[in-house]
């Protein structure tokens, strides 16, 4: 098998091999279907994407349910994610141990939440987690600073950044505790006109 890999391009090979076991695979993945916003076909496609990320690591035959994780470096280099300033956070939030390494289930989870069928509440919940950099269940001033710095690539001065953070807290902090709770965040994001259209990855 490894010899074959060297001979042909992995993606082509994966397609060929995939045909042969796709029946079994799809039966296997059909259970994921109820847990995601994807059809079985889309899940299969996502699986191939996942497999393509690390063909050496991930077996094509997933029926034995191997316990493999694709490292963050490969996840973050996907074209869908590589230009996203929050890609590391996304990977961390959806990975099991918060280190960014993902199993197939995590991978499916991630794109399910990011799909356009996912409801606003679910998206808001994960958006909150993504913007909560220090994982303390609150978006505090430090998290906001991180967000602004990532969004602007650090092109704003410190005064400007702190002014922005102050304003955000002033606007969205419903209970004046100096940080945004999940409720504050949802309250705010509920009114955002283009949250659903921007918090969305097409795959």
């Amino acid at each position, binding site marked *: 098998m490894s010899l074959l890999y060297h001979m042909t391009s992995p993606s082509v090979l994966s397609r060929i091999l995939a045909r042969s076991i796709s029946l079994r695979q799809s039966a296997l993945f*059909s259970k994921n279907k109820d847990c995601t916003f994807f059809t079985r076909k889309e899940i299969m496609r996502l699986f191939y994407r996942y497999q393509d990320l690390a063909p050496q690591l991930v077996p094509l035959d997933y029926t034995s349910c191997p316990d493999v994780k694709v490292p963050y470096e490969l996840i973050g280099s996907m074209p869908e994610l590589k230009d996203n300033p929050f890609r590391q956070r996304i990977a961390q939030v959806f990975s099991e141990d918060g280190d960014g390494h993902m199993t197939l289930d995590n991978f499916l989870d991630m794109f399910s939440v990011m799909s356009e069928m996912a409801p606003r509440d679910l998206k808001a919940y994960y958006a909150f987690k993504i*913007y909560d950099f220090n994982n303390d269940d609150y978006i505090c001033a430090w998290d906001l600073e991180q967000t602004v710095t990532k969004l602007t690539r650090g092109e704003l001065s410190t005064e400007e950044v702190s002014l922005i953070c102050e304003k955000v807290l002033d606007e969205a902090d419903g209970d004046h505790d100096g940080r945004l709770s999940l409720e504050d965040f949802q309250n705010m994001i509920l009114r955002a006109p283009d949250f659903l259209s921007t918090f969305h990855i097409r795959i």
Partner: protein
Amino acid sequence: MSHQLKGQGEEGGGGTRGRARSGSLGTGDRSRRSPSMKRPHRAEKAPVPRRAQPGQKKRTGGSPGSGSPRRKQAERRGRRELLGDRERGSAEKTCGGRRKDGRASLREQRAPSKKEKEVRRKEEMWKQLKKHRSSSVASSTSSGESLSEEELARILEQVEDKKKLIASMRSKPWPMARKLAELREAQEFVEKYEGALGKGKGKRLYAYRMLMAKKWVKFKRDFHNFKTQCIPWEMKIKDIESHFGSSVASYFIFLRWMYGVNLVLFGLIFGLVIIPEVLMGMPYGSIPRKTVPRAEEEKAMDFSVLWDFEGYMKYSALFYGYYNNQRTIGWLRYRLPMAYFMVGVSVFGYSLMIVIRSMASNNQGSTSEGESDNFTFSFKMFTSWDYLIGNSETADNKYASITTSFKESIVDEQESNKEENVHLTRFLRVLANFLIICCLCGSGYLIYFVVKRSQEFSKMQNVSWYERNEVEIVMSLLGMFCPPLFETIAALENYHPRIGLKWQLGRIFALFLGNLYTFLLALMDDIQLKLSNEETIKNITHWTLFHYYNSSGWNESVPRPPLHPADVPRGSCWETAVGIEFMRLTVSDMLVTYITILLGDFLRACFVRFMNYCWCWDLEAGFPSYAEFDISGNVLGLIFNQGMIWMGSFYAPGLVGINVLRLLTSMYFQCWAVMSSNVPHERVFKASRSNNFYMGLLLLVLFLSLLPVAYTIMSLPPSFDCGPFSGKNRMYDVIQETVENDFPTFLGKIFAFLANPGLIIPAILLMFLAIYYLNSVSKSLSRANAQLRKKIQALREVEKSHKSVKGRATARDSEDTDKNNSKNDTQLTKEGTAHHSASQSLTLDQKAQGPGASSSAGKTVLPASQHLPVSRAPGVRPDSGQARPQAHPWRSTSGKRAWRPPH
């Protein structure tokens, strides 16, 4: 798009939930009616004979002896085995639980592979970790079934909850493994207690609907993309906006809008005037007005002559003089003079209409945005990044645009906070206005003086070059020095840059009006001169023709060949002269603009960029530096250019075509120049939401340019030998002629009646009254709007303060409960990992279900959930249970301990 998207999602979700619920209700009724009927039915369906045993056990469980703990335990074990067995067969029969998932194909489900069983086994191991949970369910249910009606009802309720859970599983914020496990558990549960169900039809329908929903969403998206792609230069403008801010982009949007308007005008004029004349009118060279005169023939094709729009250019369809005064042309009997007049009128009509309509729609758009004011920065921070971006160039632009928009908002914020020393600012503003009015008056007087002098010079012979061109020189000097002067003075005023731009625009506009005034004055003089000469030329023409045909020395019997059109003496045709003047002005204006951009921006940028290496001071940061984009100058240039077009298009139909070309090239050229050689403004500011100020200026210019055209049409006689109206006393006579000759007589009477001043004056009065009424209505409405907005703001403040008080109180409460529950914590840490995320999701669910309850219940649970891994700890149960009566789906799945009596 997002709204529709959301709507679709909700619809789909609601549909599932609804169906699941209704299905379970039906079965619930059935099972309630005959609880004993259900079980044998299920037992006979069971594939493994062993399964019958626990089932029987369960039935006997109703005996009083079932209370003994040992027996119960045995029962539990049996139940667990049963669950394991069922799991294996569940692929075939879980349709009850899964029927809401229509996309499942039955064939696939009926073919479970060996590998799948392995997976099952693995998951079973995971399941055993939570055995006390499932066993507790088993115990409670087993005792419940046999015991009483309430227990039964509770189970039914639980089944229903499970179904809801299955339906909403995909929107639970849990990791996949947990979702899978919960899903399986819920499916088993439902299957076990629900029994056989009618299925199949609803499923397919549901699948179909889901498919259609997805297709629809995709179609919408594609259509939206297509629409965006159809907007010309959208990407270019977005690019500029992301680097230079919305104020610079507003100029380009204005330019694009102008291009659209001009395209329509171009279509109108070309389609209805120029093309009919070229196709159906008399060909070139057939009549004097369509022929180059003999004296000009030699040089008519020289480039320098053509460049001045003389020679062949002058006698082409581009200008008024070319058109013949034949009433109808071609086999279509197209009434060209009439069409010419009507097109001239409708150019103005259409422009007025489109400008006013766009102003009105801008106004409407600006009132509808109220909510986003409250969350400017939050929305920018959390929703501005587009996760769809998968291209590094786009990402770079997005970074730039986010930075720019943050800067814009910061400028707005700083300006709104700045409230120091009102008196000084007020004084400075008055002073600045005074200075600028002085400047304007001075320059106005200067223009007036120079124009007067030039009229005297024009009467004198042998004037010097300076004296001849004095007006132009003074005008361009004023145009060069006044705007920077105004800008310097405006620095005193300390306005927000957006408002500053408006003032600047207004002031330069006033200055340019002088330009317009001198231009029109010179033109009028020219026209008067030509008109006064016309009578004599007319006589000469008649005399020449008369003599040509009656001269002696020609054979009387043979009629003379007609005089060659080039030899006929002709008048000066003031209309064409006016058209040529506007044409020249437009072209030279265009060239001057381009050369200024090339020299002032591009060469300067090159110089600064490349000479910086070998210069004694820092060129980039120091004196010349890079140019900023001059918004006010460019906008006014565009507006005045459009004024020229409106004024000239009646006398030079080709002018609009030239202008379309100009706008097109200007779009590309300026886009390139901005991106290549300009730097963003020091204070990037957001453009006003509606660029109604530009539109207002445009409307003013339109009105001003309408005046001279209307004047010439109404009160000057057309030339006798050129243009579509030649031979008439006034140009508008063409209407009268058409009405009299082509319309039935009663229509003519109606027109005459309508033109009666006795009717027109009351109509005008009525219009004024209507305007007054509508104006007052709109004022009162906008006042009401402002008040409502204020109220909303006040409400929000109240809500905020209320929340903060409440939040502090609940925080204190939660700390108390925290202490009380600390011992429970240690006891329940086993479940902790599984429940941690669940406790968060609980709050999420709650909010989705009851916004009313969320403010109170969410507050109490949220802080607790942080400290307590298990939010269903006995200590907090009473109040949280009261607060959320709907939170069952979660409770029933992961919180099975609810059924256990509290210890």
